[in-house]
């Protein structure tokens, strides 16, 4: 048989492959209407969840702290660690929010890695992506703050920005390879180790990178 003949026959025979029935227009439209209403309500409900309220509050505090930090850190200060971590009252809000940010980021990345390694894992829940987006905003605020003058902390924040951006994008189109890639990045860059070193020890006055 010639190629053309084969292709004609193939096309004809393939018409029966998964031959669609008549489109159930009204049923699908009803589902679309119901699902859009459900998602609208869910979005509103999310805004009232405690962790969202907390995140918004933390971001507001951090924004305020960054602003205060910019005003109070002397220009040309080399020892930004001292400037940021000093005992002045004006940077207290900044330090509290930054510490909470580091703790939350560490918790998210630890949970992400644990979830990806479960037997049925490899595709962590979309909530990780939502939290990563939230933390990504804070990370960028941190990079704009005096804290970024500390090279060690700046390097960590830049790595966190990449990791969080990757996790934030998983919701739309995630697959096992992407998750594996992120976990490899976490390991290769020792992100969690550096994150823990930067965070103040709980219940102590130690500052870490802050």
């Amino acid at each position, binding site marked *: *048989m010639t*190629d053309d*003949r*084969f*292709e004609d*026959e*193939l*096309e004809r*025979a*393939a*018409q*029966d*492959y*998964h031959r*669609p*029935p008549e*489109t*159930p*227009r009204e*049923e*699908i*439209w009803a*589902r*679309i209407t119901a*699902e*859009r209403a459900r*998602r609208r309500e869910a979005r509103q409900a999310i805004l009232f969840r405690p962790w969202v309220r907390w995140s918004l509050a933390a971001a507001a505090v951090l924004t305020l702290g960054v602003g205060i930090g910019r005003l109070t850190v002397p220009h040309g200060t080399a020892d930004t660690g001292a400037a940021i971590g000093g005992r002045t009252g004006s940077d207290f809000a900044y330090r509290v929010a930054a510490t909470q940010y580091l703790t939350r980021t560490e918790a998210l990345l630890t949970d992400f890695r644990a979830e990806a390694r479960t037997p049925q894992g490899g595709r962590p829940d979309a909530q990780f992506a939502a939290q990563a987006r939230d933390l990504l905003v804070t990370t960028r605020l941190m990079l704009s703050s005096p804290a970024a003058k500390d090279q060690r902390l700046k390097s960590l924040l830049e790595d966190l920005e990449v990791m969080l951006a990757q996790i934030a994008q998983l919701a739309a*189109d995630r*697959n096992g390879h992407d998750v594996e890639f992120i976990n490899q990045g976490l390991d290769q860059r020792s992100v969690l180790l550096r994150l823990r070193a930067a965070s103040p020890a709980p219940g102590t006055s130690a500052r870490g990178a802050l």
Partner: protein
Amino acid sequence: MDERELIARVRAGDPSAERTLYDAHVDRVYRVAYRLAGDDELAREFTQETFIRAFARLDGFRGESALSTWLHSIAMSVALNGLRKMKRFRRREADLEEADAVATTRRESEPDLKRRLAHAIDELPEGYRTVFLLHDVEGYTHEEIAAALDVETGTSKAQLSRARAKLRETLADFAGEWTR
């Protein structure tokens, strides 16, 4: 009402315009979803999600392509990701030898051409199968396929050629029947 006006009305929140847009495109979206999924419930789900995303993202539609092209790129993304997620087509990327081996072992138990063909299409790699269904079954042009899948036109042509070659190879013993 032309397309631009329809889009403007949907953006303004006009429910009747949304329904008009839906009516204009739902058949084609559902048909493709069904061809890819082979399951009515999945096809409904993919169609539903396609329009929900389209309505949500219409503000970002810049009119650089036709609305149908834009809508179909969403539909393809929804359907292909949905199928991957469901792991029903995990072995889609199986190599040629493995696909042939499966086809050969089923030859005696499934002598019917349509079932053999369906199985051979199922066994095509995802990209080949998608292009074959869109072009040879649903009648899309290579330009439409390229836009919907965000690939080059040449890639679409190459994948169709490879899909046909693979089907020809797998169905070689049926070639005689088609000449009778």
